[in-house]
Structure formats: C-alpha cells, structure tokens
C-alpha cells in the first residue's frame, strides 16, 4: 500500500531535515551534483533547508546566486544538459514567474525538441503555498501550470519520509522535475528511514483506508484531510485518504483502485479552484472512471482569488478541516448515482 520502507528503529525528522538529508546523500553519491539558489549557501536558505551544506560540500558545489531567477534556472539547465545534475531552488514558487521561459520553453522541451537526444537531469525545488499572512505574491500554489506543461515531472511531497524518498528519485531522474515543498510543512515531523531509499515517481499512497469516499489531498492539505477524516470517523463515516505524491506522472491506477472501493470522490487543493490540478483529477475520473461514481465529484479548493494578507481572509480562502468535512458529508449523502448499463 505504501512504497515507503519502514525504518527499523523509528527516526523522526522534520520535513526540512529530510530534504536536507536527501540533498546531502545525493551530493555524497554523485560528486558532480550542484546546488544553486538565492541565499542557499552560508545562510542555509531562507527556510534553513540547505543549512550546513555549503560548509560540508564547499562553494564550488553550493552556489549562492544573485537575484536573477531566469539566468539561474537557465544556468542549472545548461549544466544539466552537459551531464551535470543540478538542483536549483526557487525561494518562493511565485518567483518561478521570472524563469518561465527557461522552465517551460527550454527545460521542459529540450529532450523532445531534440528527438530524445538530450537529457536534462535538473530538479527545481519550488517552495510553495501560504506561510501565514504572506499575501498575494508569496503564497501561490502554481503546480497546475507545470502539470499542464508536457515535459515536466511534478512532485508534491507531503511527509518527511516522502520528501526524502521522492527528492532522491527526482535527483536521479534524467528529466526535469519540479519538486514542490510546502512552507508550512517544514517543521512537521515524521519517521524517516536512515537508509538510502527511493520512492518511485508515479505511485500514489493510501494514507488512511476507508470505504465510503476517496479524499484526495497533497502537500499542506494532506494533514487537514486526515484531520477531517478523523472528525468524520466519529460520525461513522469511513474516509479513504489518498495522496497522489506525484502529479506527473499521475497514478491513475491507484485512484481507480480507491474509487472501486468507495465510489465517491472529493478532491482537496490549496490552489484556487479554477483549473487547479483538482480539475485534472476530476476530469480523469469523469472520463475514465465514470461508471464507478455514485455521486457528483466534489472539489474543496482555495477560492478563486489572489491570496489576501489578513489571517481571517487567508483562512477563508484556504480549505480547512471543517470545509473538507462538509464537502465529504455532502458527497456521501448525495443520492445521485451513476449506473453502468453495459
């Protein structure tokens, strides 16, 4: 059910530590691996994720960059195209707007445009989501732009163990991977195996089993979905919580198996509802798993607004446990059924 190996002796790390460990292990393994980003060196990054790596691996390998997102991502791509695997950090994923040509027109398309004859082992770490009153330009969840861009793999790591195992897979992948990390998860803790393990890209995970409804959630919405499932359990509802873990490739089979058990689908997402990745999941289900659906699909998403500053407003914009639970209740109590007639 889960691809994460169990640690012999439980070792609890924060999500930030797990990411740092993955970076350090991969830098040990491959002495050519480079890290690039603004203030990732001495200061260890604005969120402290890369702390100590400069000291350990030297400034030839951990490069503090000027504030020039486009050139930085282009440089990471250029190095990767010459066979130097590179991990670049975008400090707030909102700043990826400044590097979209390099991400979308160049990195995503290089292999394809060259008939498969080039490879760009590039990972872009995208620090995403709100962090509490960070307002409209430091809170965006932009993953759907990249899922809509063929040629990019898109990873969303929601737990420390996943973060480590998925990041290591992303780094070893010969193609560009956007690796989304949520700011509000950096301090969350969880068991993380000490050994060198990989979580393959393209395998979702049933985080909690259930039979009444499938609740899809990732990143910061995953803990909220789990809380909602807990609340609903006390009401007698059995909620299966499923984390896709990677949006591209997307684990269609995993979703299908869950829907076979539950027949109902609720999708949670921090990003604004319109055209977020929730729309793609809903479309896949409505197109490919329609006969399994006993009720309308429900999306519980951020409102179609930029992110406001005031905490009251921000809380209104982003789904919380209550709103998720309400969405699930509505879906479970819906009496519309799809009947397969053939």
């Amino acid at each position, binding site marked *: 059910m889960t691809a994460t190996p169990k640690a012999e002796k439980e070792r609890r790390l924060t999500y930030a530590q797990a990411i740092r460990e993955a970076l350090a292990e991969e830098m040990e393994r491959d002495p050519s691996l480079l890290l690039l980003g*603004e*203030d990732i060196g*001495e*200061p260890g990054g*604005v969120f402290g994720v890369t702390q100590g790596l400069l000291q350990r691996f030297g400034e030839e390998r951990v490069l*503090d*960059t*000027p*504030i*020039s997102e*486009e*050139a930085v991502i282009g440089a990471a791509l250029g190095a990767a195209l010459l066979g130097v695997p590179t991990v670049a950090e975008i400090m707030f994923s*909102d*700043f990826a*707007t*400044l590097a979209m040509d390099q991400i979308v027109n160049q990195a995503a398309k290089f292999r394809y445009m060259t008939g498969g004859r080039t490879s760009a082992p590039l990972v872009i770490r995208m620090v995403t989501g709100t962090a*509490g*009153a*960070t*307002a*409209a*330009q*430091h809170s965006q969840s932009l993953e759907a732009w990249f899922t809509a861009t063929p040629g990019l793999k898109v990873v969303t790591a929601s737990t420390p163990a996943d973060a480590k195992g998925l990041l290591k897979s992303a780094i070893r992948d010969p193609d560009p991977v956007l690796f989304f990390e949520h700011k509000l998860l950096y301090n969350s803790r969880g068991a993380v195996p000490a050994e060198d393990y990989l979580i393959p890209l393209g395998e979702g995970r049933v985080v909690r089993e259930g039979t009444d409804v499938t609740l899809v959630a990732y990143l910061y919405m995953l803990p909220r979905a789990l809380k909602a499932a807990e609340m609903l359990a006390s009401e007698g509802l059995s909620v299966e919580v499923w984390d896709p873990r990677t949006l591209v490739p997307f684990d269609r089979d995993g979703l299908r198996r869950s829907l076979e058990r539950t027949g109902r689908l609720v999708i949670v997402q921090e990003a604004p509802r319109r055209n977020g990745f929730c729309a793609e999941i809903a479309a896949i289900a409505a197109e490919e798993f329609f006969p399994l659906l006993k009720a309308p699909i429900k999306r519980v998403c951020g*409102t*179609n*607004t*930029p992110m*406001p*500053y*005031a*905490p*009251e*407003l*921000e*809380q*209104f*914009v982003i789904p919380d446990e209550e709103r998720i639970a309400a969405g699930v209740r509505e879906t479970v109590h819906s009496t519309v059924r799809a009947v397969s007639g053939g």
Partner: protein
Amino acid sequence: MQSLAGYSPAFLKELYRKMVLIRRFEERAAELRSLGYIPGFLHPYIGQEAVAVGACAALGSHDYITSTHRGHGHILARGGDPRYMYAELFARRDGYNRAKGGSLHIANIELGIIGANGIVGGGIPIAVGAGLALKQARQIAVHRPDDPRARRANGVAVTFFGDGASNQGAFHESLNLAALWRLPVIFVCENNLYGEFTPQHKHQPIRDIATRASSYAIPGLIADGNDVLDVYRVVSKAAEDARKGRGPALVECKTYRHRGHYEGDMGQYRPAEEVAFWLEADPIKNYRRLLLAGTVCSEEELQALDEAVEQELEEAVAFAKASPHPAPEEALEDVFVESYGGRALL
C-alpha cells in the same frame, strides 16, 4: 555633508521630521510585530531614511513612485498616512489596502504611490509605464487641456529598488525602454550593500551600480544615500531634466540598513566594523547635528518635532488598534470591479 544655504528652514525641518517619522514608524512596527499585532513580514527601512525623504522631497503632487518590499519609508516620505499604514500592517479594514495587501503591497495612486512590491524588481517596469502615461499627459495637455490627466503633464516617476534588484532582467529591460523613449523616469537604486544575506560583491562584479547607466546612454549619478540633502540635490536635478523631456537617469544612493533583512533576521552575516561604520554614518543623527550646527533651528524645536512624531504615531497605533478586522467573506471581493453575481467568477 551639504551646506544648508539656500534652503528654507521649513523645508529643512520637514526633511528632518519625515526621517524621524520613518525611523520611529519602523521601530514601533518592529515592537508591534513582536507583540503580535502584525501577522506578516516586515523589512525595516531603518538607516536608509535619507534616500526616501531626499528623493520624495524632489517630487510634486502629480509625480509617482513605485516601491519595494522595504517600502514603508518611501510611502511615508511620499505622504502616506501612518494611521492607514499601521491599520494595513495590522490587517484591519481601515488599512490602505483594506487588509488585503499588508506591508509588501501598500499602494495609493491618489498619493502617487503605485505600490510597494513583493517581487524584487517588479516595480521597475511599472514605473516605466507610469512614465509613458506622463509623457502622454503632455500630449493631452496640448490637445485636451480639460482632461484631468492633463495635470500630470510635468510629472515624473521615481522607482526605488535595491542593489540586489539591479541584477534582475526587469531592471535592464526597463532602463533600455525608458532611455529609448526618453521617458520621465528616475531609477533610484538604494545600494545598501546586501541583497538579503548576500553582500554586494557576491551578487555582482561591480561596485558602482551607477555605471550601468552607460548601457543605456543615460546619466548615472551617485548620491550619498545617508545625506538627505545630497539625495535631494541629485534627484532634483534628474527630475528637472526628466520634466524637460531629457529622459531618464539612474541614481545610485550609497546607504545601509541598520537591521537585518527582515524582522527576525539578526544580520550576523555582516562584519562588526562595517555595521559600526554605518551606524556612525546614521542619516538622522548627522543631519540633526548639521541642523543644530547651522542657525536653522534649536534643539528645542527639533525635540518638539520629535515629540510631534511620537504623538502622531501614538495616535496612528491607537487608530489601527481600533480598526475592525475584515469579515472573512470580504476575501471574495475586489478580484474584479464587478461581482459577476459572485460565484460565477469566483
């Protein structure tokens, strides 16, 4: 340091008052944040007051500015009201942005403030657009003098940004465009020697950002960013030229921030001697000394100004504290001018 000759005492005192207002606004904001009144980021402007005040002193009521993440100083210098600013920082309904923006996004077009900005370099192209509108206003003034936009015919736009921002592509594109079209835009670079935690020599291979002006065949001027009168003098001259249709200028102001990059950053990455040097070069302390050394005003007068600032900020804080929190559903407003019946668009 400049001579005081030729300036009216009222003008000189106003420069002082504005700098103190900014300094104290920021100090109080830091305090208020630690007390839990301010939920978001703060990037204090302390140490750089002379730049905002000197530059904005060169501006009139039909001029515009764009600002940065470190924007409180610019906004106060341009006439921002501390009441609405604190209310915004407190995320209250009376804030300039009705609690939707916070520190990074305070704006008020009526005051000529096109906005602080959370994106490093993001305000620079917008100022070029303001310059374009101002240039157009000259045509409007000729052909349609009754159009309210005609009043801006002499306007200039000033865009503030940091040394770090001068490495962004937007900086380059904007200077090229403004220079090409001879737009009335003054590019004011506040070189405080750091972009976040990175010292200048680790983010660009030059010392004087003003030299970058030569890439666009426009003047590149350097001002002592800790000397309010020097900033005023250099920006005034550039603005005068711009108003005459001579096109843009790049003005580099050498300065320093006293505190960390944001509240919470202790700034330990900076050598102690460097910090000590620049604390000694405090723009307010030195200007105060200069004023007292001249015959412009007495210690008592300055103290009265200090106290008036204290009083104003006291009231501003009280105003902000009394301002209501927004109602959660207000989050749905203001995406577009119309509501489109709410849900259809939302």
